[in-house]
């Protein structure tokens, strides 16, 4: 099978990419989705708040996705669901397993990687204790409750205050479970402020900052956890241990871009984001391979995910048509108080209107300023009332601002 653009993943990044590739004129566009239906993780995100930037509305996840699914239905983009990409080769051959279509080898002119992310597990944060049933990641709990109609447990402790965990604290409460509390190892919450208010405070669920789970009890089913306060070094403070009986521990301790395919193909990955190093076109270091959404870096708004998907899709169509030529690239570096910034490379000659930047800060700060410098010269500043690590900052660098940079590498800092 030959296609111009193959999109791996039918979630918000993938569908935006497929539509954009089609609009940009790619004749044959194929979406490969491993789940039974399109929509990606948003299928299970039945809470609202999606699409504020994109549609000016607060949509539930499935409604947000339906707009893309409906738009896709108006095109001749080919969709294969229940189809898992087993391998991507550097020559852009995708090996796909599917019950209906068998084992396919798809040769693609360009590929968009939009596999999303996965959740960090109990082991990746070195939680000690026994290994009983009753320990779930927040996303798995969301799927069980919202899609399978199953309540995982009745008395719940949540570790980590990431957005999915906060949303599940509310959902579990609404479905009749008792959420004893949310414990966060850091001195500040991991999720968006609106979720702290709407999911915890509105339901009187206590949030314990600078606390973590230090032991897990129960041989078969979870019987309880021990929590403890942590010091500034994030180590448990002796004597502060407290036993909490519970049958369920929900973990919301971080997301990791999913890049098994990227890694297998030899795509260069960034040590901080965990996703491919990308340029302004969402091109990875591997020719003809683009990436978008949470596979690149974990975003907190789906609107941003879709936006990167559009860029990747459009660029992939141009690459497949032979229009996207390689040229010299500037490096974009994180400066003071910036943990990462996207894109990490930039081809100034490709930027016509402007280029969207996304960054996360390392530490919270009030009345902060985002500063873009090129060779020491300030090319842009942007005032922020407050910056927090969980809340991504996005801004556009216009072509004229970029022109001021000349050929010098860019450094983005938050001061």
């Amino acid at each position, binding site marked *: 099978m030959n296609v111009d653009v193959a999109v791996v993943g039918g979630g918000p990044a993938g569908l935006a990419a497929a539509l954009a590739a089609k609009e940009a004129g790619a004749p044959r566009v194929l979406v490969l989705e491993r789940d039974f239906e399109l929509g990606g993780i948003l299928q299970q995100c039945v809470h609202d708040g999606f699409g504020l930037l994109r549609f000016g509305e607060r949509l539930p996840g499935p409604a947000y996705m339906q707009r893309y699914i409906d738009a896709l239905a108006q095109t001749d983009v080919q969709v294969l669901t*229940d189809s898992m990409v087993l391998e991507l080769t550097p020559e852009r051959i995708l090996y796909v397993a599917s*019950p209906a279509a*068998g084992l396919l080898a798809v040769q693609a002119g360009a590929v968009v990687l939009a596999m999303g992310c*996965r959740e960090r597990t109990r082991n990746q944060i*070195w939680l000690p204790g026994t290994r009983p049933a009753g320990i779930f990641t927040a996303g798995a709990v969301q799927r069980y409750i919202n899609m399978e109609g199953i*309540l*995982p447990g009745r008395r719940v402790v949540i570790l980590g205050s990431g957005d999915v965990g906060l949303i599940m604290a509310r959902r579990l409460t609404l479905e009749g479970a008792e959420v004893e509390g949310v414990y966060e190892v850091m001195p500040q919450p991991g999720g968006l402020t609106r979720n702290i208010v709407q999911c915890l405070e509105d339901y009187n669920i206590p949030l314990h900052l600078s606390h973590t789970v230090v032991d897990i009890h129960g041989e078969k089913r979870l019987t309880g956890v021990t929590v403890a306060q942590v010091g500034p070094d994030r180590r448990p403070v002796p004597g502060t241990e407290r036993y909490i009986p519970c049958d369920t521990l929900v973990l919301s301790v971080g997301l990791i871009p999913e890049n098994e395919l990227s890694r297998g193909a030899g795509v260069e990955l960034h040590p901080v984001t965990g996703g491919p190093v990308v340029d302004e076109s969402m091109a990875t270091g591997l020719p003809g391979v683009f990436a978008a959404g949470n596979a690149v870096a974990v975003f907190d708004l789906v609107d941003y995910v879709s936006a990167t998907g559009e860029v990747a899709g459009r660029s992939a169509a141009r690459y497949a048509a032979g229009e996207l030529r390689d040229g010299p690239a500037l490096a974009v570096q994180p400066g003071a108080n910036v943990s990462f910034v996207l894109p990490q490379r930039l081809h100034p000659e490709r930027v016509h209107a402007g280029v969207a930047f996304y960054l996360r800060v390392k530490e919270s700060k009030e009345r902060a300023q985002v500063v873009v410098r090129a060779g020491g010269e300030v090319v842009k500043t942007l005032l922020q009332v407050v910056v927090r690590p969980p809340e991504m900052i996005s801004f556009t660098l216009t072509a004229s601002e970029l022109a001021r940079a000349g050929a010098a590498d860019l450094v983005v800092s938050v001061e």
Partner: protein
Amino acid sequence: MGEEYDVVIVGAGITGCGIARELARYDLRILVVDKEEDVCCGASKANNGMVHSGYEPKPGTLKAKLNVRGVELYPRWAAELDFKLVQTGSMVAAFSEEELPALEKFLERGKVNGVPGIEIISGDEARKKEPNLSPEIIAVLWTPSAGYVEVQQVVLALAENAVANGVRFLLGAEVTDVLVEGGRVQGVVTTRGTFRSRYVINAAGVYADKVAEMAGAREFTIHPRRGTLIVFDKREGKHLSCFIGAVPGEYTKGGGPMTTPDGNPLWGPSAIEVADKEDTAVSAEDLRQVIEKDGRFIPNFPTDTVITYFSGNRPATYTEDFFIEPSAKVHGFVNVAGIQSPGVASSPAIAEMVVGIMKEYEPLHERPDFNPYRKRFVPFRERSREEQAALIAADPRFGHIICRCEHVTEAEIVRAIHSAIPARNVDAVKRRTRAGMGRCQGGFCGPRVAAILARELGVPVTAVTKKGPGSELFAGRIEDLRLEKGAAK
């Protein structure tokens, strides 16, 4: 009274299943019972799968004899039962001059024990074999005969072959009493019925002392020793091809980093004496010790690629040797106890020895129809693209990838649930197929595996367990819970 057997074997670990498979050669009615819902749930589950070469046990001990004999027999087991045996050798490292005498001691022991090819090589020679070894290692005891297996695959192979040759397995049956009349064993009472037999073989691991006590044949003691193992991502599997350990301490050789036959780096085990046989919780201290100790050997290893860790209890005896004897007090009751390291390596020889003990009770008659062969089902992920295409064409369920990390298909999970030793819970599916053993630890495939188990077992998904009764995964269906709540009001 329940069914009658010639032999009841208590314990379905590598020892019990190995004995069952070797006794199946003879005209005997054999029953294997285990308190867990699956085979390989005790000490066999929680070790590093190393087939030790045999330099470590004191000459003259049972361990020394059975270890070396076991290594000799392993290739035949692997060939007949079609499990992976990777013989890449093993190393013991000396970081300083002070540790050299210990290497010399084990070189001598190895020679006396008959370990083939054992020698001491320089640190540089060792780094030629294993380039990622620490530059601080000055010398290494090298034994080329050491090998590695995936223990759960060995135990399953043994059990499946035993079943194919007429052995019966009754799992989820805890032994509550051993019947003895007139100084002769008469059978066992279990939570799933009473089974009369002329012989009882006690291969109950950390519980062997309890089972022996039930028979009035407690001729040894067991003290559990916890070991913690850490598994890392397969993509880091190239750091080492063989095991490297430290100079052994007084009671245990301790662990060290290695790579499993399936390609995961594996560190540990640690060794901590514990009072409770069921105490298999991993402590922060266990983890810290393993990381610190094993990290010395390969300093540049990225430990943040951890996938999982777990602990198990080794059934150590106070003599630190295996205890394999027909009871002096109860005729027909055979203790096969204290099988800790090098238990995996010794298991074929242990089975051979127990067959010998049985032959002293009475002559055994070989069955002409014994089939020593068992064919492994080669997993989807290990097959060529052409073979994968053919599998999906024949059964579309091979095209349905359930475990994204390990590329395990629905067909393989269904097969595991209906195999000779059926997988009845999520962990049992995992042991057979690797579904959930990857980096996401079942985050994606968990719901799907549970649904397949429910469908294939004909039970509601709320009855599906992680590892047997009491470990149900879910509180219930939301709809039912709402109805309950409504009724209560």
